[in-house]
């Protein structure tokens, strides 16, 4: 009796041991192997190449929003990429039935759509019908940046993203807002503490890591995979725009703190200068954008944006930066045509190029051209009377969009490093007497122009 007992115990233990061994194998297969390869959800979701779940979900979603008269458009980069290849054919046959499911059947976790905030009424009925259709939805709201710049206003939080999930597929609906400066803005996707972090694999979303700025797109109604959707008229330029759409909000809180320390100059002169600087900047932006030349706020204008979200009233000019690779010979005639005569031209395209245009009433527009090296970027300066050359060094930077005096403009994304390089660690303290040859933190002597080149590299009008 006792013996049997013992044997049974032994057998049971061996069995458990075996079962656990099996478990181990299972876990290894499900959790550890996908880590090295694709992602978690793959094991749960669909694996096969052709998958109609996605198509059905998209179709349901489009039905839902059209029954509520909400105009959305497709901004999914992967689909737009595919669409772009066949754009001619899609344009020419907007209604033709498609032989195979080419776009909406590739297995993905998401399909991304955009919604213009002002085109819908925040109708809660939408969500109720969505639930009836089986969608689970998540709304991501946050502060309204259009009120952020204002002292002490607190509005309602605005919806920035919606996610509608059905079965294994999710629709990411990005809400775009119109901003001063005639552009569209979408917010970052940030989860609040109580939110379900596993609602969808957020990491794989194409929109939401950063806020973004876009032009208002022209739309085109097309039929792809037998679904009628609006897409940007020119998908490739939309994709291009998307790749550097990152938007930086001005640091309004810090700007307010700055004005606490150094009250704003509200004199009539300051008001007048700001008005002129603003209109000059608008004119310059219009001219350069028409030429397709990328530019950013540099020097004092950039400092003004970064430190106080406004034009520095005692700065007396407007400064822009342009990469030398974007230089076009048309720039000078274009500005002249816009009513801004060339005041001086220093340097040459190969070295230390700098242009100055005369704006209205002594407000000057300075354009500095930036030269990229392996580990830094620099621009040059020239002293007219001595022919001395100067060099201003900056760490490498990329460009981001921002809103400044009702304009969508570029600034270096790494603004702090840029401003610190230029103005040193004390950039927060206003300096009224400024010498461009000695005051900048990053200025270096760069020799003297050879006398025989002076006529070319020092031109004053």
């Amino acid at each position, binding site marked *: 009796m006792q013996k049997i007992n013992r044997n049974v115990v032994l057998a049971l*233990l*061996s069995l458990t041991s075996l079962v656990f061994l099996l478990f181990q194998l299972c*876990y290894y297969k499900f959790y550890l192997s996908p880590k090295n390869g694709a992602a978690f959800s793959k094991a749960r979701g669909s694996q096969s190449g052709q998958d109609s779940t996605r198509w059905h979900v998209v179709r349901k979603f489009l039905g839902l929003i059209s029954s509520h008269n909400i105009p959305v458009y497709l901004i999914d980069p992967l689909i737009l990429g595919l669409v772009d290849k066949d754009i001619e054919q899609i344009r020419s046959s907007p209604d033709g039935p498609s032989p195979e499911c080419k776009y909406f059947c590739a297995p993905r976790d998401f399909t991304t759509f955009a919604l213009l905030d002002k085109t819908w009424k925040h109708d809660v009925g939408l969500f109720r019908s969505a639930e009836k259709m089986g969608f689970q939805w998540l709304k991501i709201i946050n502060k309204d940046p259009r009120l952020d710049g*204002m002292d*002490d206003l607190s509005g309602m939080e605005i919806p920035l993203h919606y996610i509608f999930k059905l079965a294994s597929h999710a629709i990411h609906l990005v809400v775009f807002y119109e901003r001063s400066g*005639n552009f569209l803005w979408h917010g970052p996707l*940030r989860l609040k503490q109580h939110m379900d972090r596993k609602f969808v*694999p957020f990491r794989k979303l194409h929109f939401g890591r950063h806020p973004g700025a876009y032009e208002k797109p022209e739309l085109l109604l097309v039929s792809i995979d037998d679904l009628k959707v609006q897409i940007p008229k020119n998908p490739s330029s939309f994709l291009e725009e998307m790749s550097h759409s990152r938007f930086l909000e001005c640091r309004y809180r810090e700007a307010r703190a700055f004005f606490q320390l150094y009250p704003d100059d509200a004199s*009539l002169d300051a008001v007048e200068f700001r008005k002129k600087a603003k209109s000059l900047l608008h004119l310059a932006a219009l001219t350069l954008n028409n030429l397709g030349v990328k530019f950013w706020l540099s020097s004092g204008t950039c400092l003004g944006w970064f430190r106080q979200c406004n034009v520095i009233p005692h700065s007396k000019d407007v400064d822009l930066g342009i990469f030398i690779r974007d230089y076009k010979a048309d720039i000078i005639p274009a500005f002249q045509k816009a009513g801004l005569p060339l005041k001086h031209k220093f340097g040459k395209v190969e070295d230390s190029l700098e242009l100055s245009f005369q704006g209205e009433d002594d407000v000057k527009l300075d354009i500095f051209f930036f030269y990229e090296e392996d580990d830094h970027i620099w621009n040059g300066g020239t002293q007219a009377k001595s022919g001395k050359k100067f060099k201003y060094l900056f760490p490498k930077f990329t460009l981001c969009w921002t809103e400044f005096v*009702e304009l969508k403009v570029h600034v270096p994304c790494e603004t702090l490093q840029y401003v610190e390089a230029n103005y040193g660690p004390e950039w927060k303290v206003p300096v009224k007497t400024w010498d461009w040859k000695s005051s900048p933190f990053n200025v270096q002597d760069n020799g003297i122009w050879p006398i025989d080149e002076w006529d070319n590299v020092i031109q004053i009008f």
Partner: protein
Amino acid sequence: MEEWKPNPPVKPHKKRSWYLAWKYKLMNQRALRKLCQTGAVLFLLVTVIVNIKLILDTRRAAYEEEEESAQDYDDEMLNVEVPRHPVNNKKVLDVEVYSSRSKVYVAVDGTTVLEDEAREQGRGIHVIVLNQATGHVMAKRVFDTYSPHEDEAMVLFLNMVARGRILIFTIKDEGSFHLKETAKNVLKSLGSQVAPFLSWRDMWTFVGKKGGEVYGEKHAKSPALSTWGDPVLLKTEVHLTSVEDAECHWPDTELNRRRKRFCSKVEGYGSVCSCKDPTPIEFNPDPLKDNKVFDVPVAVIAGNRPNYLYRMLRSLLSAQGVNPQMITVFIDGYYEEPMDVVELFGLSGIQHTPISIKNARVSQHYKASLTATFNLFPDAKFAVVLEEDLDISVDFFSFLSQSIHLLEEDESLYCISAWNDQGYEHTAEDPSLLYRVETMPGLGWVLRKSLYKDELEPKWPTPEKLWDWDMWMRMPEQRKGRECIIPDISRSYHFGIVGLNMNGYFHEAYFKKHKFNTVPNVQLKNVESLRKDNYETEIHRLLGEAEVLDHNKNPCEDSFVPDTEGRVYVMFIRMEQEADFTTWTQLAKCLHIWDLDVRGNHKGLWRLFRKKNHFLVVGVPASPYSSKKPLSVTPIYMEPPAKEEGAAAVPAVAAAAEQT
């Protein structure tokens, strides 16, 4: 052990014997065998434990992985969420009510919900309404029933309160002098034993449920005319009901959800919370054909006068051509009740931390509101600016839609306003007629974005300057000779009696009899003639056809204007230079129109109606229209009153500022 048999190894005997030998050996050595078995069991147990641990570890790793994946998207600001208060299951509220000559207070469950010990303030009957299910304060009012008519307001208010609510009354100082029979009867019907006998300087507290039980009442009689009753303190308990009992059972729609949220929080809005027949909160007025102001944002400037805001928004949302999506209500301060009103109507509201004091606070609030409006609607070229104490005419948007192009095209225009300062019942007649005036009336007006962004915003008075924004906007530095377009009959009505610079007397004298258009779809007459040069032609034509009145008569007398209808008359008054308004002010006074400062003039000309005739007043010789004066006519001169009266009028002008 049999399985070993069929498959004997190469040297079975040796092997077998080795195995058996061991087996027997072990069998014999029981202790050793036992040890081995225990070892095996232990080993297996350890395996099991290790396995469990492994499972747990993998799981944690996987979880962390996913956590990490969402980390990029975490809100940087760690919202430390205050844990929600556990639902108050308490069924009984302790209520304390105190009434005395100089102080009243009400405490509910130890929390003071009313405390007033300010001098010279808060006299009369204080009323507090509590939600019978939650115990929350839904309304707080004071009715100065020492003064006339306040008891009527109290009756009106008490009638609006829903059945079942808990009402708390307490008297500060004096509350019986003008407490009439009707009001006393209403209090009696609420269950008060004392109310019918309340008399001079009695102290009184009362807690009861509307249409239900009485929780307590205390009273202290004043012993003599010159003294007050002793302070009374009433302590009582109130039994709460269930939430379901405290709510109405409206059909479950989005609108009714908003209504429910509103009605469970506040009281005193009448039939909007009626269970049987609630008044609508969505109005769907007829759309306007070819509405040119559909996309123009509307900024409603509000303070803490939620009842006003409620009335205002109702009229605004009922106006034809309104676009609720473009409306933003800007509330000066973190007041809850105005925000509740905004949410009731499904509009968006923005709260503004008050900056500075008094007039400067209003001014800063205006600036923030206007800037925010243009930020929120960057495409807009204009903004409509309204205040919370205005009724909006049914054809307000139609009026703007017909005239807004002028503001866009005519640079000599400063604004379009819905308000005619001189448009009283007896001086305004023609809803289709528009004027150009040199003063900015405000009270429902349209602002051009370029004017705001380029001129006004950068120069706006800073918080330390205690200026009125509208007085500032009227200053020549800002107005720069530009004019506003106004209608003859106002498209807004100023109903506010309580306000920064407003009181009942002032309202009655200057605002109550203001004419307000109630006719829908008025087709405006000859809008093009409002352009700068066209208007001059128009005025010359009018003056050409006008009959000169008999200047020997007294212009204040009714008989000054003949008993005709539809004629055009002109009179000439003395006006030595552009800023000489001596005679005009006297004339305005006797005509009972706005006389606190000069309004409604255009180059020394005023246009109004008398006895349904168009009545023009020309200031001679300052006005360029003086040339129309026949040589035989001597301009009328009216004496200003004696000095002291003139001086007394000065503060009144300042007081008129904000509201006009």
